[in-house]
């Protein structure tokens, strides 16, 4: 709760800072500082919480557990990393730098809500608090028509999915008379009310939209492609992970007891997502757009955490979310250094700048799930969760085949960097940026060797 309040307050502070301070660099420093403060608040909240404690607030509208605080902390840290890595690019996007940073804080508020909501109303608000700033971020590069187009597409489809989400919530309410997600008592019913089932399906669909799962994924490539690149990085990572925590929280808290009625649907969605994301990514010429499709594909993997209803899936989600976030942020940070976002833009990078090529390789390895990177352990946890679920071996094998396909397009970057010749245009890297990239790469490797760092005991 402290974090939510702090984030709100800091968002407002940031907003005013944007009004008062005109120097963009200063705004960036302020944002970094405030994010650090927010991270501090998160850590403080984590430290002050007792192990195993569950804090219920506002008539059980929020239930804060150590897990949710830990998750919030990770997301805040990821945002801090993001701002550190890409701050200089964020401030180049448009005029309203202060506002953009304020929007990040708002999104973090939404994230905090989604990690600890206990009431569908809070969930709804959380999703909207995450979504609306993202619509804006997508359209923030006003010189660029693509950005506006992305924004409009995102908005229209997002609003559409909001309608679906609300219909789902309403139907669930109609069947149970409750908005409190821990009070649905499906187990007592002799049969599952079709209205509940319909509601659950509506919820699956709308969450599929938020996490860009097939067949609701259509917005993703266009929006990610059109948005200013630094914001794409943010939306594809933290924004998406936040939606996932809401998804898993709702479904595992409320619908676990009727899981057999929806897992199959979700499994099919997962398979479709993996298929669409991976296959379509193969033919892309732009790395940025490829990453958009790959984010669909990765969402497919992350969906395993929702499909497999077990304690492992939460852990898996945390590991996957963090691993995916770090690696993707890294890739985007590198991408921003290049002038040309196509695969050809990477040609000969290893010769020209071995350092960038080296870190990119690590990030790509992580995304492709090569061992000794965080991405591998993330996939490992997901697969383990799915295998443990029992009936999803087919999905596991399908996912692995698709992972092999993913190697195809990820390795195109590596092929371009190492085995092709070209003269990529690269903007200068400052020492700090180098340091941060190394840090990110190190994180990827450390988490690949010791993923348990992400799951300390008592979480």
């Amino acid at each position, binding site marked *: 709760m402290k974090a939510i309040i702090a984030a709100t307050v800091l968002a407002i502070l940031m907003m005013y800072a944007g009004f008062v301070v005109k120097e963009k660099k200063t705004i960036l420093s302020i944002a970094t500082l405030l994010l650090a403060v927010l991270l501090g608040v998160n850590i403080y909240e984590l430290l002050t919480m007792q192990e195993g404690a569950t804090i219920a607030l506002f008539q059980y509208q929020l239930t804060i557990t150590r897990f949710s605080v830990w998750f919030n902390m990770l997301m805040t840290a990821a945002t801090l990393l993001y701002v550190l890595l890409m701050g200089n690019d964020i401030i180049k996007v448009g005029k309203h730098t202060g506002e953009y940073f304020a929007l990040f804080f708002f999104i973090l508020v939404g994230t905090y809500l989604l990690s600890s909501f206990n009431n569908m109303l809070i969930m709804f608000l959380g999703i909207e608090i995450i979504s609306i700033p993202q619509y804006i971020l997508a359209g923030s590069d006003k010189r660029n028509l693509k950005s506006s187009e992305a924004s409009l*597409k995102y908005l229209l489809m997002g609003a559409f999915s909001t309608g679906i989400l609300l219909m789902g919530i309403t139907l669930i309410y109609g069947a149970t008379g409750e908005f409190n997600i821990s009070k649905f008592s499906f187990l007592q019913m002799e049969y599952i009310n079709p209205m509940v089932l319909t509601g659950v*399906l509506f919820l699956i669909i709308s969450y599929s939209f938020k996490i860009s799962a097939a*067949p609701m994924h259509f917005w993703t490539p266009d929006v990610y492609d059109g948005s200013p690149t630094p914001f794409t990085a943010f939306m594809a990572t933290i924004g998406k992970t936040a939606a996932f925590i809401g998804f898993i929280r709702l479904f595992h808290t409320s619908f676990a007891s009727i899981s057999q009625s929806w897992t199959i649907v979700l499994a099919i*969605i997962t398979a479709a997502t993996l298929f669409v994301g991976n296959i379509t990514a193969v033919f892309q010429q732009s790395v940025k757009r490829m990453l958009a499709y790959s984010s669909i594909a990765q969402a497919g993997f992350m969906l395993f955490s929702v499909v497999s209803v077990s304690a492992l899936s939460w852990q898996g989600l945390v590991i996957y979310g963090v691993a995916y976030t770090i690696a993707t942020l890294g890739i985007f940070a590198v991408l921003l250094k290049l002038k040309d976002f196509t695969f050809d833009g990477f040609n000969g990078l290893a010769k020209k700048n071995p350092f960038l090529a080296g870190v990119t390789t690590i990030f790509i390895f992580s995304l492709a799930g090569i061992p000794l990177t965080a991405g591998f352990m993330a996939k490992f946890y997901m697969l383990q969760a799915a295998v443990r679920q029992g009936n999803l071996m087919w999905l596991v094998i399908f996912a692995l085949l698709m992972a092999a396909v993913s190697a*195809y397009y990820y390795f195109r970057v590596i092929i371009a960097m190492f085995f092709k010749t070209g003269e990529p245009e690269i903007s200068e890297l400052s020492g700090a940026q180098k340091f941060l990239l190394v840090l990110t790469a190190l994180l990827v490797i450390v988490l690949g060797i010791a993923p348990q760092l992400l799951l300390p005991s008592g979480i």
Partner: protein
Amino acid sequence: MIQLAYLIPLFPLLGFLVNGLGWKSMPKQAAGFLASLMMLVSFALSLGVFFEVKGGAPDTIVPLFNFIQAGKLLIPFAFKIDALSSLFLLIITGVGFLIHVYSTSYMHDDEGVVKYFAYLNLFVFSMLLLVMGANYLIMFIGWEGVGLCSYLLIGFWFKNRDYTNAAKKAFVMNRIGDLGFLVGMMLVLYHFGTLSYNELFAQVSDNQAVMSGSTYTWIAICFFIGAMGKSAQLPLYTWLPDAMAGPTPVSALIHAATMVTAGIYMIARSSVIYNHSEAALHFIAIIGLLTALLAASIAIRQYDIKKVLAYSTVSQLGFMFLAIGCGAYTTAVFHVMTHAFFKALLFLGSGSVIHAMGGEQDIRSMGGLGKKMRITQATFFIGCVAIAGIPPFAGFFSKDEILAAAYAHSPVLYYAALAAALMTAFYMFRLYFLTFTGKFRGTHEQEHHLHESPIAMTFPLMVLALLAAISGFVGLPEVFSEHHALNEFLSVAVTNGVHHHLEHSTEYMLMGLSVTLVVAMILFAYAKTKKPDFQPNTGLAKVLENKWYVDELYNAVIVNPLLQFSSFLDRIIERKGIDGGVNGVGKLVRWGADRMRLLQNGQVGAYLFTMVIGIVLIFVIGLFCVTI
């Protein structure tokens, strides 16, 4: 002495190592000298061993070390010295020594002489392993080793593509046989759990009842397939005539005297097994007889001096297998011995001729060489007489014994074998007359060049001629003497099959018949070659000249279809099928990616539309397909 038997192969090995490792720096003369010296030492040791065995020394196993020991499989590296192996030792080292000596002169000018002697020594080493091994695996080592040396020596003049082709053919055909041998060994191991002769033969004699007859037949046939390859029997004989590509002493040593008789040795060694399988013996007899006839018929119409001898070798090997097929193993061994002498003699003689002719091998260009090469002519004549079977030369006794055994078995076999023997007499004397008598038909240059060979070459000829003349007496048939010396000597090691005793009168009659006919044949040959005209052959003669078109047949039936099949596999199945399939998956993915990409057409309306369809589908699946 016998315990030191391992020294016998050691010396040739030593020679090989010294010559082989020093192939760059070794002087030519030294190489030949060293190699011959090693052979001489080996020969001396072999003599010692032989006389010890002859003096009644029991069968001895000379163990060296455990070759393979894995689980239940135990194969020691050990030598077995008994009558059979000691006899072969003698032949190998003796003839081997002579041929080494001969080679020092014959190969004198060749640049690769060091290499040559290294190979030759290696060959003798392998051959000694083959006959001395105390189990089938050691025999197999030697068996393949001699194949290797044969390969190396046939392809000795490696610049000539035909020669290397011949070498390859020899090795591959041998390998086909080796596979049979290998399968035979597997069968023995599978059924008896051992490869050691002593244990195996003891088991065979003890529990006959346990194994079915067909087991023995299979083992016997498999081993015989091995022998077919090595001893050039139908259908695997075609490599031997081609093997004449090697230097002539090699042909003498490997492709006449020793290696090709390895098959005989193996079967004689395994006589215990063969005695359990009538069927296998019949099979061997038929194959042997057919080979003898076929090869003899081809030899009639060959013009290459070495080819005639090669087909003659094949034919004589056929005789030996005929003997084995009749259960007369010792007779076969007897013929091996005599054949080693006279055929080595003949080859070396032909080498002498070729040497004199400056490399020419076609008898159509020869004639009247006897005037210039007295020793060669005389020794060659002895060889011819011996092989044709004129008493009291060696060939007569051994061949007669074979004919007698065949007659005892079945008169049909006898008559067929007799026909082959007559052909032998004909082609050998045809060769002799064409080469040594009449007028010289070659170029002037060649005529000018003609000369008798140096002593290093004629000496072995003389020794071998002597042996060819007298060695038959070790196997005097029972009609002439109280006992058959060789049979008795070998009886410890080799168990002859059921022996049909012939009446003495019958034996005399048979001998008389064959000698008469042979003499007639020689006269016929003389008449035919008195005024040689070398018109192109027609009809049957042409078929014979072209070796019954067997090579062509093999090419058409086996080689070419196999190549075409391989090519089909390579081009269609591998590239289009399997690899195409694998690549096809990749292509499919890319194609799918290209199509799927088009779904993303940038139209919000279309996106919404697809989403709604997706939603409907999800509802249909979720609500109606999932039974709760």
